[in-house]
């Protein structure tokens, strides 16, 4: 029982309701994309589900336990969390940053042994970073940094992964590359919940789409069922034509 089960989750900040009665489930072998406009409450939903933000009502279970009650280390071993990418404080080596993915397993930088070292090696190989592993992070390009953060999340070897806009500000080739990495993780039995802004890519990679608007989950299902021109117009306020998983968008009339 590794699933994340969120039921009737509500998050309030003073008078504003950031997340309103949201329910969803994340299980292994699923690639779930969360879609919605800026300010729809996507990040709040993820953070509250992880127990990082205070819940007003509802519940968020991870492997059967309320996430807010889990110690950060236990939670991190059950689910890897990749927040929106922020600059690193120091010019560490790529390998050291990836090794931080093993923090919840007790790994200390510079003294990486046994299973921790093996997990880091596997993550480096999976993300094709062996050539870069001894470089300082301030010498990497945006695409290489994104790959490094993916490797860091994979190094935790948690069954689930939550990533908040992992492909923001990347060129198209790197967007494909990162989503391929996450798709690989899902193929190997992982479950991923990924916030995306590119509807085409979401429809192409995800097995399920969660649509958010104004704090509510308004639809949750496979792209074939939930991706419609009406929904795009409702959620993003754009005119759209949908052909299978291909989407054309235009400014509203």
């Amino acid at each position, binding site marked *: 029982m590794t699933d994340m089960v969120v039921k009737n989750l509500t998050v309030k900040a003073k008078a504003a309701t950031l997340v309103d009665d949201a329910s969803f489930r994340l299980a292994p072998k699923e690639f779930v994309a969360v879609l919605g406009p800026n300010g729809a409450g996507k990040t709040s939903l993820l953070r509250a589900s992880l127990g990082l933000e205070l819940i007003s009502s509802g519940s968020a279970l991870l492997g059967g336990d309320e996430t807010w009650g889990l110690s950060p280390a236990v939670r991190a071993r059950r689910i890897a969390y990749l*927040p929106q990418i922020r600059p690193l404080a120091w010019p*560490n080596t790529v390998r050291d940053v990836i090794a931080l993915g093993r923090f919840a397993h007790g790994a200390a930088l510079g003294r990486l042994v046994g299973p921790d070292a093996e997990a880091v090696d596997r993550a480096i190989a999976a993300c094709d970073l062996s050539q870069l592993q*001894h470089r300082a992070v301030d010498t990497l390009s945006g695409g290489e940094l994104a790959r490094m953060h993916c490797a860091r999340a994979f190094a935790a070897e948690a069954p689930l992964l939550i990533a908040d806009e992992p492909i923001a500000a990347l060129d198209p080739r790197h967007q494909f590359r990162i989503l391929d990495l996450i798709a690989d993780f899902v193929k190997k039995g992982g479950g991923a919940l990924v916030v995306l802004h590119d509807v085409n890519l979401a429809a192409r990679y995800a097995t399920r789409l969660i649509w958010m608007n104004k704090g509510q989950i308004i639809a949750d299902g496979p792209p074939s069922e939930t991706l419609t021109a009406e929904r795009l117009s409702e959620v993003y306020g754009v005119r759209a034509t949908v052909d299978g998983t291909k989407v054309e968008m235009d400014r509203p009339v």
Partner: protein
Amino acid sequence: MNQASRDFEQLIVKWLTPALAVLCVVAIFVACLLGSTPLPLDRVFAAFFAVLIDGGDVGDQLVVWSIRLPRALAAFLVGAALGLSGAALQGLLRNPLAEPGVLGVSATASLAATFSLYYGLVSISPWVMPVAAILGALAATALLAVAAIRRLSVVTLILIGVGLSSFSGAVMSLLMNLAPNPFSLSDMVSWMLGSVANRSFNEIILALPFLVIGSAVLLATGRGLSALTLGEEAASGVGLDLTRQRIATVLGAGLATGASVALAGVIGFVGIVAPHLVRPFVKHDPARSLVPSALLAGLILVIADIGVRLIPTDNELKLGVVASLIGAPVFVWIAMQRRSLHD
């Protein structure tokens, strides 16, 4: 980077701490050799081991055990406490310009100590002043710990520190402004400038427990500082308990800094300079920078204090003044080097 230069780097990482430790011992020993009364090597050795084997001159023993060794040890301990606190706070705040002064701990500690001088409480017992400094540091750290428990952001912690520093500075100026006589004024000034002259083992023993506990807390929670490299959100993502980390670092740095202020008054910038020099040699990992930073800062102050004693001036220079004269320009230089990327 090729394999050979990586091996060389590994070698430095491995030997940095032992090498610094040896240099510290040598520097403390040299500090016992040098001074106004010249003591040759054999007499210092004789005085050192007089406890174990009979012999040596009683006067030499007095110079070494009551004057030079406690002074050198005090300089080392103060430096080590400030270097360790600085390295830990820089890791916590993810900013190479952080140091005990930034969180207002030094300022509050020195304010409390100034109070005890002002009201002549020191005449009750010579231990009143060190205790007051430690209480001042604890008051500041308690306030910061409350802020940390309430999960206020690091920027807020720094701002609270700025507020504490400014307020302490203002009250201190007020006290000096209203000083009843020139003697208490010169007392306060000389203590605020920072010095380890005339320190005895008594004062060291009083400060030591706080210093040891604070350092132990900082060293035990060092691993979390590595995780904070990622930023707070990602650090909690990899499993760091943010609240606990903040409390531990703030408390540990508060205790160690309070003890150092109790021992030597305000000595600035060594807590910034030492970690900055160490960082490139430990792959910029905050956890691995802790011990070398402490040793290097201790070494710097022992050497600076030897310099203070040897420079022939009418009034002996204050260690804190010399530290700031060297440290402040380095601080400005580090600030100028910083790229906006890291802000």
